[in-house]
């Protein structure tokens, strides 16, 4: 066990956990930030996507000891009122089916638009390809990312 001071969603959190614990479980079990989901545990599905200094990372294979001072953002902290352009676009397109993969999809999409505010279709496909949606909402996800990009740029 070891103590870690983590900067998550703009707040400091102290946890006392095994240093090898993946951030996913620190978030879900210890900090009760359960918006980040477990889907595979091996960085294959993207359900657990969070931002580390603004970049999309898979929290299921990211050890808490590797975080240090870096800023962590989870779906709960993406926006105060659920009004990030990506979230707004998601609501407009009414993307979700079961909803389980959606937080991860949104975090990946938000990081993409941060890096590349005007992605082409194939850039969207490339960035989103690490996120599985078992319900098959891909066409809507793509539309929502395109819409968020237009909204951000206008």
């Amino acid at each position: 066990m070891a103590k870690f001071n983590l900067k998550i969603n703009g707040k400091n959190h102290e946890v006392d956990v095994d240093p090898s614990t993946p951030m996913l479980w620190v978030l879900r079990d210890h900090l009760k930030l359960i918006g980040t989901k477990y889907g595979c545990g091996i960085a294959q599905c993207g359900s657990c996507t969070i931002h580390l200094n603004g970049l999309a990372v898979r929290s299921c294979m990211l050890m808490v000891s590797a975080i240090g001072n870096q800023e962590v953002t989870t779906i709960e902290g993406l926006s105060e009122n659920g009004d990030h352009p990506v979230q707004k676009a998601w609501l407009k397109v009414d993307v979700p089916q079961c909803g389980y993969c959606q937080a991860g999809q949104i975090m990946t999409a938000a990081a993409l638009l941060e890096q590349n505010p005007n992605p082409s279709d194939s850039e969207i496909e490339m960035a989103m390809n690490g996120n599985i949606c078992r319900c098959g909402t891909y066409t809507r996800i793509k539309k929502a990312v395109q819409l968020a990009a237009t909204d951000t740029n206008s």
Partner: protein
Amino acid sequence: MTLIRTKIGRRAFIKNTSLAGGGLVLGFNILSSCKPEQAKEMASIEMPKEWFEINSYLKIGDNGLVTIYTPNPEFGQNIRTSMPMLIAEELDVDWKSVIVEQAPYHAEKYGFQFTGGSQGIRRRWEPLRMAGASARQMLQEAAAQSWQVPIEEITAEGGVLVHETSNQSAGYGEMASVAAKLPVPDEVELKEVKDFKIIGESHKNVDAKSIVTGKPMFGSDYQKEGMLIAMVEHPPAFGMTLESVDVTAAKAMPGIKDVVTIKSFKDGFEKGGFDTNAFPELVAIVGNSTWEVMQAKKQLKVKWKPITGYSETVNGFRGKETKNIPAGLESTETHKAKMEELAGKAGKIVRKDGKPEAAFKNAAKILERSYSAPYLAHNSMEPLNAFAHVVGDKVKIAAPVQIPSLIVPTIASSLGILAENIEMEIPRMGGGFGRKAYAHYVVEAALISQKVNAPVKLLYTREDDMTNGIYRPTYHATYRAALDENNNLMALHVKAGGIPESPLFANRFPAGALDNYLAEEWSIDSNISIGAFRAPRSNFMAGAEQAFLDELAETLGKDPIEFRLDLLKRAKKDPVGEQNDYDAERYAGVLELLHEKAAWGQDNGNVHRGISAYFCHNSYAAHVLDLTIENGKPVVQNVCCAIDCGIVVNPDAAKNMAEGAIIDGIGNAFFGELTFKDGIPQKNNFDQYQMIRMADAPKEIDVHFVQNEIAPTGMGEPPFPPIFGALANALYQATGLRHYQQPFVSDRPPLVG
């Protein structure tokens, strides 16, 4: 208005007895830690000071706000929106003043809370509208009594009661306290389709905001003070069971509370149809946190032993059936050989029309093709999980389950408690696809809680989820067509089988359209557990049948849509046999709509088109799939889809579901496959089990509904089966190669050249 007698009687709208006569009703406790966020988000709308329960499905606040308890478990069909829409329509209330809450499992109040078989809306179509209509009538009655005027003169619309002649009006909230004390009427009036204001208009997913902001809502999100985390270890191979376990090392790991063994069934328990469970004896490991339990799980030293073969009686939807579970460690290689062997022998004749044998004997030409498909794992994004807290002879459960009522007898028997002592909340499921109809994991969580005497959340790892499957079976089908010297179709013969069940639907199209028809089936026993997977059996038969019809149309020199329409014309005009379980006119209707919407027959340059149609779950679906070859790889450009599922309650949500079914089908047709070696599933996570991702999904999907006034039929499943055929047929157009074995993309030689 249509006068409809409430056939299901007052019990369907039972009130909370403790609250009979109205009064303040406290909101149901949905997830103790997950209060419905929706209410908070409606901050702009003032919450009522008092709620009045009108019936078990709804309560009305003194300010007119309505809370609707939606009865069925949700796993992505958006029934948490469309079911309340049915109630709100007949209640005649503004959709904006509706709050939706999930009803807990309660058979007496909410009937059969079953989400599966595309039956949700179909079975609830009348009862839920009656729940709304009876509440509206009680409000009208309350106004009639208050104003001393005849009830017939009171209109109720948009949440307002009006008596025109006396110029009186009141909001539903004002009459709710009086209405709540009235008896539930015996008869109610339901609206005519043309008067619908909510049904048939697209309404956004009521949970979308909670989903996109990451609110707790899934079973695996459940939290409770003092809750422990549990995982189970099941045998590595089908055909194995627990022998013994050395728990010392695991128990010594940090954060671990206990390691126990559990047995899911009491000896002599008569299983129901959804009690499928290949691994009833398990080792469970319980600790403080998920990561600690995962680590300790690796330290378990378990000895497994081979099972002995047995027979069991299962009492399911089809009545009592005997199932044989053989011993042994099975492999895909031997499965394939056995299937080939049985496919080559005579099967059990299920239907015979005319003289098919003679037609084949006299045929000038016979077209014969065989199709096969592997086992599939459901792979819902949310792995199996369940919360259970046993206290004495009672248990509280919160678990993602498709059919809560059907696991109740098992829980009661296994725990040794009374069924009425089981309380169950039904949180949103992160996918189900049939898998979560088999709720053995709930029994496991309850047994673990009982043993460790604490609230427990059982979580399957992805590997546990994939390797303890209740899989889509592996199937095989051979189609034969007899042609005369003038290239006329004289007879059709289908022989289908699988492990451990046959996928055949002998009475579906093209049965009924042919004078000479023969349908045979066979099956092979197995100890690999199988169960419902989105459109069971249809999900294989549609692909095989529609690929064969495509090849047959080509052999006959006919356009594939015209060919099907000709057969349907015959089936309508002069059907062969009496058991045909499809409506030829509706079937033709989707094909005609598709023909128009997809602009069938036009030259699309380098786009290759495949067409397919199918009837299942009381609905009709047809697709045209457009494919191009880019850098030697098939790319699905567009899918145009036509569906006849009767009245579409929430059109945009229904389109979302059709899009999902199409993508799911393309993914499984391209990549879906689980193989076995010595009983061991050969894939256990997404690095090995290929799932469809965005880049492989169609660029566009275009969904059209046949407009009619038929009561709603299935929607979640029907668009899924035919897409397999549409893809196979488009691939043929693109590559010149017919694809007979799923998955179409695999380690076999590449698709193109």
